[in-house]
């Protein structure tokens, strides 16, 4: 941890948040309505952006920075779609873009940066496994000759190893999607709001055994926008600013199986989380709300362990009996995460952290919280952020 990063802690805040109608779009896409022609990524990005502007009491003229991840859309098109003329632009991956935007704002390259995401993955028919995948992360396509592919299979291998090592069953894992579904039921914009019980889970089909359909995230359309500016210029805005207090990043090399299966991602998470804690001058005891990446249910307990909330092998025990629920010791994915709210590659989870820290989450609000932690955790690394009510 450099002193520079320590000084950046809290200097920039999230002042606007917007997202799209995940639930309504999902229902429309499944209603066999001939009028429904699907969404497109640019349109979703625009809707989220306009809502974030309104939320922050801002106009397009206030936005002089743009960082976006909207499919293959080039910068010229994106600025046209959004109707802005930013001086600072980055097209890329959310987690490095958020860090970079904080630096850019601090260095005066931009005053107010919109981070924009839009992905019409459902309308586009995106798949996360199978022979069509021929590029990207090596493990997604290299093992085709052995019939092994998909995001699901990564977590199936990881959970199988962990469950045998520490003596867990599928029923123990059920606690994670069941709890997160309970949260989604309190969120009107969540895609999946049907009650889910442990029995429903156990009776459901396997995708990649031992994982059931409820262990895997949705594929749906949506967009999210977060607007950032200096905390000391965020005081007279409609909402309490949400400070970006710390971050950490770690991406593994060497053997994926060793990192992911044998070590349960713990090295990634400990390093990434440790950096974030250090930058924020906090420990896990200061964290009141956790938004762990949940494109697979099983990485939730792994993140709980990795950040020190539970001892190695005890992360899944920690997920039992409502301890990760509202009113529990560490409420997790309170809007329904990506398992039940919306699969926005973590962006919706950041939006929820903002709403919780503003104390605007309504029926699912965790009372009086001041801190929240988000992690983008994958089979190759972890990007962690700590947010604090300003």
């Amino acid at each position, binding site marked *: 941890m450099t002193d520079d990063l320590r000084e950046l802690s809290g200097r920039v805040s999230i002042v606007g948040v917007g997202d799209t109608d995940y639930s309504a779009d999902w229902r429309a896409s499944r209603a066999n309505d001939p009028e429904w022609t699907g969404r497109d990524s640019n349109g979703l990005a625009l809707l989220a952006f306009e809502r974030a502007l309104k939320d922050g009491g801002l106009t397009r003229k206030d936005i002089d920075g743009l960082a976006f991840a909207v499919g293959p859309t080039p910068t010229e098109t994106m600025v046209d779609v959004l109707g802005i003329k930013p001086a600072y632009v980055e097209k890329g991956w959310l987690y490095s873009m958020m860090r970079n935007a904080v630096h850019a704002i601090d260095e005066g390259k931009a005053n107010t940066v919109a981070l924009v995401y839009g992905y019409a993955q459902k309308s586009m028919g995106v798949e996360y*496994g*199978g*022979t069509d995948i021929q590029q990207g992360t*090596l493990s997604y*396509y*290299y*093992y*085709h*000759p*052995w*019939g*092994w*592919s*998909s995001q*699901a*299979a990564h977590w*199936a*291998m*990881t959970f*199988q*190893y962990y469950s*045998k*090592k520490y003596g867990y069953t599928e029923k123990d894992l059920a606690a994670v999607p069941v709890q997160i579904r309970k949260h989604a039921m309190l969120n009107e914009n969540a895609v999946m709001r049907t009650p889910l019980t442990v029995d429903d889970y156990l009776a459901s*089909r*396997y*995708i*990649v*055994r*031992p*994982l059931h359909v409820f262990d895997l995230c949705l594929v749906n359309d949506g967009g999210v926008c977060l607007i950032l500016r200096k905390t000391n210029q965020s005081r007279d805005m409609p909402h309490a600013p949400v400070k970006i207090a710390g971050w950490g990043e770690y991406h593994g*090399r*060497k*053997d994926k*199986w*060793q990192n992911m*299966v*044998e070590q349960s991602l713990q090295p990634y998470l400990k390093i990434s989380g440790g950096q974030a804690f250090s930058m924020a001058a906090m420990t896990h005891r200061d964290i009141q709300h956790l938004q762990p990446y949940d494109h697979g249910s099983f990485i939730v307990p792994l993140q709980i362990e990795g950040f020190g909330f539970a001892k190695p092998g005890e992360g899944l025990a920690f997920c039992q009996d409502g301890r990760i629920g509202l009113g529990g010791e560490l409420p997790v994915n309170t809007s329904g995460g990506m398992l039940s709210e919306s699969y926005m590659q973590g962006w919706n989870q950041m939006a929820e952290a903002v709403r919780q820290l503003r104390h605007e989450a309504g029926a699912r609000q965790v009372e009086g919280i001041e801190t929240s932690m988000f992690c983008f955790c994958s089979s190759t690394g972890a990007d962690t952020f700590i947010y604090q009510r300003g």
Partner: protein
Amino acid sequence: MAEKRPNRVLGPYHDDFWAYCREGELRLQKCGACGYISWPATDACFDCGARGDFSWEKFSGKGKIISWCTFEREYYRGVLPVPWDTILVKLNEGPIFLSNPKGFAYKDIEADMPVKLAFIDCEDNAGQFKLPVFERA
């Protein structure tokens, strides 16, 4: 009769791996700079990043199953049936190798079950090849 399989990744280094398989050998790349064994085949060491400095280390093919999973959803419709079993084998020499069980199935597998290497005749769009799989030791 060769089993139809989804396509391999081919090209420099990958072709070497499959050529050794054709000879009935499981060989993986050992870095000349740091000694690390990289798998899947690569042009740069997964540990130190050194490029192009490899020897192909021969493996005994003995190991144990550390994890396993079975595809119930058809990701390879029309090519592979479901349920489709896959195993993760920790080779005695250390590296971890994803493969398929030969002569046993999901219900037979236990953690740390010893296995040994076998090759089966397969084919993909690029032609016939020998695929490394594992049977009970």
